[in-house]
């Protein structure tokens, strides 16, 4: 990029009016997005965007555990399940309860946070691979637990899952039905979009605030060098549990929204594969960087859906479908992941720290600096 352009960009970055304009444009885009998407691509695409927002919340939650604190959690989807099942059990015919969403979501966040502490506590002395395997195990345990909690008392309705879950209703306004506001028709996917957008923005806001705080620094310190962090007075046990709890609480909220949105949940939605997909989102997008994580979540949700059109693309190119798009989807998706890992191993939008961690010089330097002498308990 020529020097004059770079200077102009730097100038623009710090220009207040330009920043305000950018915010305004983004706000307008976000408000109009469902209408544009629905109009151009059809309503099913708005539903895909809604799911993307749920995944953004999940990814930001996992970002706290893996990206900030450096704790490799492969069982994260268990907290999503906790939030979803809580909502399902409190707002469906399962127990005949129909609690309002503003009561269930905070409860879901807290319950998920509690599970975060529960699952995190035994892992505190573990590092790296061992931590990953144990969290993976816990994730699976939760799923199997939920699948089997239908006898002797039927709590979760087992593998059949819970259906007829109440849609989310805000102030008498049910998001499950098409609504009309100021003469504009808002189908259910649109109204859910605005709710999910609001909560996603709240979670982005919380993530930003946490990053630049005493707790955020403690998380990075633990990730960088846990022994040194403890030697500087950080209560590593509590700070790690806090990371698990905060990350889990985001998943708990997202899970509750998912249950209300989809109207039906079953243990099949909370498999190991889902945990790994969320992890992919933050690794590909750029671990530790909020914008990167959001981008990763969007791409990984939307890309496979866009690949469904490969049937049409083949029609257009060859006149007929050569390979079933469903088979092709996963192949292309996998290929895309591999390519990103080869050419941008730190992620598409890595945090400045992460990019440094991955530079070639850095790996030589870190090996030089690593020493045999390490103090451990």
């Amino acid at each position, binding site marked *: 990029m020529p020097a004059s352009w770079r200077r102009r960009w730097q100038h623009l970055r710090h220009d207040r009016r330009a920043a305000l304009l950018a915010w305004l444009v983004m706000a307008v885009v976000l408000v109009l997005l469902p209408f544009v998407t629905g109009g151009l691509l059809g309503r099913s695409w708005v539903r895909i965007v809604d799911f993307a927002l749920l995944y953004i919340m999940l990814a930001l939650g996992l970002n706290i555990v893996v990206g900030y604190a450096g704790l490799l959690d492969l069982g994260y989807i268990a907290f999503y399940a906790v939030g979803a099942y809580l909502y399902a059990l409190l707002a469906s015919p399962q127990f005949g309860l129909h609690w309002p969403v503003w009561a269930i979501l905070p409860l879901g966040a807290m319950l998920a946070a509690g599970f975060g502490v529960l699952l995190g506590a035994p892992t505190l002395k573990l590092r790296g691979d061992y931590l990953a395997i144990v969290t993976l195990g816990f994730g699976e345990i939760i799923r199997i637990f939920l699948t089997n909690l239908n006898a002797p008392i039927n709590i979760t309705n087992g593998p059949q899952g819970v259906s007829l879950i109440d849609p989310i209703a805000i102030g008498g306004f049910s998001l499950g039905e098409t609504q009309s506001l100021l003469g504009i028709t808002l189908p259910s996917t649109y109204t859910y979009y605005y709710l999910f957008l609001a909560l996603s923005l709240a979670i982005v806001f*919380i993530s930003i*605030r*946490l990053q630049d*705080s*005493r*707790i*955020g*620094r*403690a998380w*990075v*310190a633990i990730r*960088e*060098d846990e*022994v*040194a*962090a*403890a*030697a*500087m*007075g*950080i*209560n*590593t046990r509590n700070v790690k549990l*806090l990371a698990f709890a*905060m990350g889990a609480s985001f998943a708990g909220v997202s899970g509750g929204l998912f249950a209300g949105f989809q109207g039906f949940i079953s243990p099949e939605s909370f498999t190991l594969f889902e945990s790994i997909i969320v992890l992919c989102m933050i690794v590909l997008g750029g671990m530790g960087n909020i914008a990167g994580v959001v981008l990763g979540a969007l791409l990984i949700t939307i890309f496979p859906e866009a690949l469904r059109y490969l049937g049409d693309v083949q029609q257009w190119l060859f006149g007929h479908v050569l390979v079933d798009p469903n088979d092709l989807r996963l192949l292309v998706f996998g290929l895309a992941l591999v390519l990103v890992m080869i050419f941008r191993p730190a992620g598409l939008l890595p945090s400045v*720290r992460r990019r*440094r*961690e991955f530079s070639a010089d850095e790996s030589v*330097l*870190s090996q030089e*600096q690593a*020493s045999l*002498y390490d*103090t*451990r*308990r």
Partner: protein
Amino acid sequence: MLTVENVSKHFGGLVALDHVSLAVHAGEIFGLIGPNGAGKTTLFNVITALYEPDSGGVRLRTQMLSGRKPHEVVQHGLARTFQNIRLFANMTALENVMVGRHVRTNAGVFGAILRDRATRAEEQATTRRAQELLDYVGIGRHAHQLARNMAYGDQRRLEIARALATDPVVLALDEPAAGMNPSETESLMTLLSRLRADGVTILLIEHDMRLVMGLCDRVLVLDYGKKIAEGAPAVVRGDARVIEAYLGSVPT
């Protein structure tokens, strides 16, 4: 101020520390010297609760330190640096020192999210104090440099600044002058004298005899985990057992 009472530590069959006792008085600079492998860093690790002693205990003023967790030791006022520098490599110098302030501040998750007045005031105070400490140790101008990009001597100073951020009453320095040339060692000695004058008690492990002789009020010599001499540096230097430990016995 700091007392080590009859501490022993084994690693399987290896006796790393054998009934070691010492007492560091308030306001002094106490040197811990001895050949490599004598158990000096092991003793440090016992003092800072990274290891638990097999027998004996460590006391800071009236508080028992042994049996506690490392972060509690810092809370009580004992901070350390490491023999092989353990900075937070990908954080800036300022951020490293700010992490040191963690134990003396208490903003939690809600403070972080809401950024209420108290939290903001605390953050500002933390940043200010961190910059002050960087200036104090002489690397103020490198505040926004990444720790891993800093010159070696500056990294050592940064580690000291970070330890000072915890407001310690005793500072335990593990080979602070390792790898330094004479003029760097000179500036380090000035810094440590200043710390002593400002009321910080210092316990240090060192191999650089010029620093030990020039700065320490008292020294203790360890060899194979046992104390072989203790006292004023000039006296210890002449002790036959010390000379034998460092230089070997005179061949007959």
